[in-house]
């Protein structure tokens, strides 16, 4: 789960990392009032999760409260990366002397957290040449040592009081990284303003799998109402932009189903993995929710392993009988209890393909034909 900038900064502040004076606002009046209270030039920042916010015009400077109001009006009426801007962060405008980059990620090859730092801050780290990025690998058993950060600040060409502040911030960021189960923590830029080092912008991604020990966490990434209800079923769902609703079992197999569909010229409307031993009721509920998103075709691809084909077939037949599946169904069934599953489908006037390529091709053809129903008893 990615956090909005203001949430990330609040978390940094909890760990003693300096952040700019700021306030979260959701209206033009609040923006004007905040700029007035601060009594200094401010910056208004749209709170969205997508990258490239600056380029999209999501960051506006305001010398006076009146201009802050105008900017807030524009920002709150805008969309960035397909998302409506609903929240702004109003901050005192910093007088920045130098900008650095400081981040912690998990290196999947060494299976350890790694601190990354660069003297080239304020730009996407991907655009910084590798020779200008300095790294320190952390042994989780011992934690991050100051000497490691001393080496890093030396490499970055930082000296004196600022060097010590950057080292302290890095150590605090690592403490946050571990305690808050972060997958990625990034301060960019880490700004030198006079003799003070401040986190001018921050990005944090937290591990959803550790939610059980962080009950106070917000949920920033629920995929709408359908997404929230499917998440409640414990299944994995991602909405996409195509025409064919996809229900499959296993994450890799679901991706392969999407790939096969695209190969035959149709686009998936979603990713839905009902694997991992979901029972019949849960799968049925997920299928009904998918059907409610108004797909042109529904493609079900099940390779029965733990999931049994007869259970799946009965689930589909029940859903069909309840009348909620208006779009034509294309089913692929193979694996555990395949014959029993096929019998159940046939008794209800449905049939299933043996192989994924056949089913994906048929689903794509049906989209081309405008979704004429070819697989039902009417």
């Amino acid at each position: 789960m990615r956090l909005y900038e203001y949430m990330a900064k609040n978390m940094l502040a909890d760990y003693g990392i300096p952040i700019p004076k700021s306030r979260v606002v959701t209206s033009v009046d609040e923006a004007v009032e905040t700029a007035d209270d601060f009594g200094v030039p401010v910056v208004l920042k749209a709170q969205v999760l997508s990258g490239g916010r600056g380029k999209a015009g999501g960051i506006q400077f305001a010398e006076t409260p009146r201009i802050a109001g105008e900017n807030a009006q524009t920002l709150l009426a805008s969309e960035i990366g397909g998302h409506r801007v609903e929240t702004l962060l109003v901050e005192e405008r910093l007088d920045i002397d130098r900008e650095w980059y400081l981040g912690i990620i998990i290196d999947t090859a060494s299976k350890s957290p790694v601190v990354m730092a660069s003297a080239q801050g304020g730009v996407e780290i991907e655009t910084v040449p590798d020779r200008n990025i300095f790294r320190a690998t952390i042994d989780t058993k011992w934690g991050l040592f100051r000497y490691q950060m001393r080496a890093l600040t030396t490499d970055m060409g930082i000296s004196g009081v600022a060097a010590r502040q950057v080292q302290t911030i890095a150590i605090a960021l690592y403490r946050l990284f571990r305690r808050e189960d972060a997958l990625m923590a990034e301060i960019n830029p880490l700004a030198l303003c006079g003799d003070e080092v401040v986190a001018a912008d921050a990005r944090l991604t937290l591990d959803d799998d550790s939610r059980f020990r962080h009950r106070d966490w917000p949920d920033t990434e629920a995929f709408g109402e359908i997404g929230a209800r499917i998440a409640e079923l414990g299944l994995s769902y991602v909405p996409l932009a195509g025409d064919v609703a996809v229900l499959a079992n296993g994450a890799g197999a679901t991706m392969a189903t999407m790939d096969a569909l695209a190969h035959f010229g149709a686009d998936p409307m979603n990713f839905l993995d009902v694997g991992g031993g979901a029972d019949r009721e849960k799968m049925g509920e997920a299928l009904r929710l998918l059907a409610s998103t108004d797909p042109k075709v529904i493609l079900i691809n099940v390779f029965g392993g733990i999931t049994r084909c007869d259970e799946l077939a009965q689930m589909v037949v029940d859903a069909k009988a309840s009348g909620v599946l208006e779009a034509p169904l294309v089913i692929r069934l193979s694996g555990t209890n395949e014959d029993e599953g096929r019998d159940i489908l046939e008794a209800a006037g449905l049939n299933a393909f043996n192989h994924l390529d056949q089913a994906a091709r048929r689903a794509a053809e049906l989209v081309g034909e405008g979704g004429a129903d070819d697989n039902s008893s009417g």
Partner: protein
Amino acid sequence: MTIRVDEKTKVLVQGITGHQGAFHALRMMEYGTRVVAGTSPGKGGESIDGIPVYETVEACVQRHGANASALFVPAPFVKDAAFEAMGAGIRLLVIVSEHVPLHDTLDILAYAKDTGSYVVGPNTFGIIVPEQCKIGIMPDHIYRSGSIGLVSRSGTLSYEIAYSLVEDGWGISMAVGIGGDAVVGLSYIDVLKWMEQDEETEAITLIGEIGGSAEEEAAEFIKTMRKPVVAYVAGQTAPEGKRMGHAGAIIERGRGTYRAKCEALEEGGAQVAAFPWEVPDLVRQCLAI
């Protein structure tokens, strides 16, 4: 201890009284795996299908000589269970549980390094040597013994490809799930190294997916291999920034893309199938030369 499991491996099931643990302990036993004991806190003294249940791993090792463990405990308790197993001297852990917090996995793998233990997973379907032994949750009836090694991040997709290989007349020497999480213990390279040496294995099928850099690292190793490798990567159409079910299956900031993986694998000398159904033909072509 190696990852080569056989009919002599003495398997312990941690979390044996749970829904999944009980079901799969029995399936494993029916397949021929020596499931010698299980643990379940507060249920020591009970038994599941004749398998004795203990409070601690220590007891399973002392009384039954358990030397491998399959973990089915709920995600919040996996770290404790894994440390218990390694502390009691178990050197092969198969962590089936999914949704294990990543920072817990880091700690587990650090301790595995200290103790010289192999950790398969988390979020793995396990290991199977067809017609001998399985430790995990794969539907065993689809496999037949043979000469193709299989290594995969995802479960169902690997069953699908194993099934299509068997349908096409091939057999499987060993199938290993390395797990769908972003960080896992045993890597593709660990498995490839082993399969390169294994006398039963003639060719290898590597099943990958978008996200991370494991396939790219494997590609580097494939350059050094004598045996042919056929690869398939899922997620050709997956959008950037969205986690596709598996914690590891996410393209972030242009890294871990389908294209980069396929190019690396091809450059490494692997034959890359565009779709799962192309794998058996490519295997045949590789072994015909």
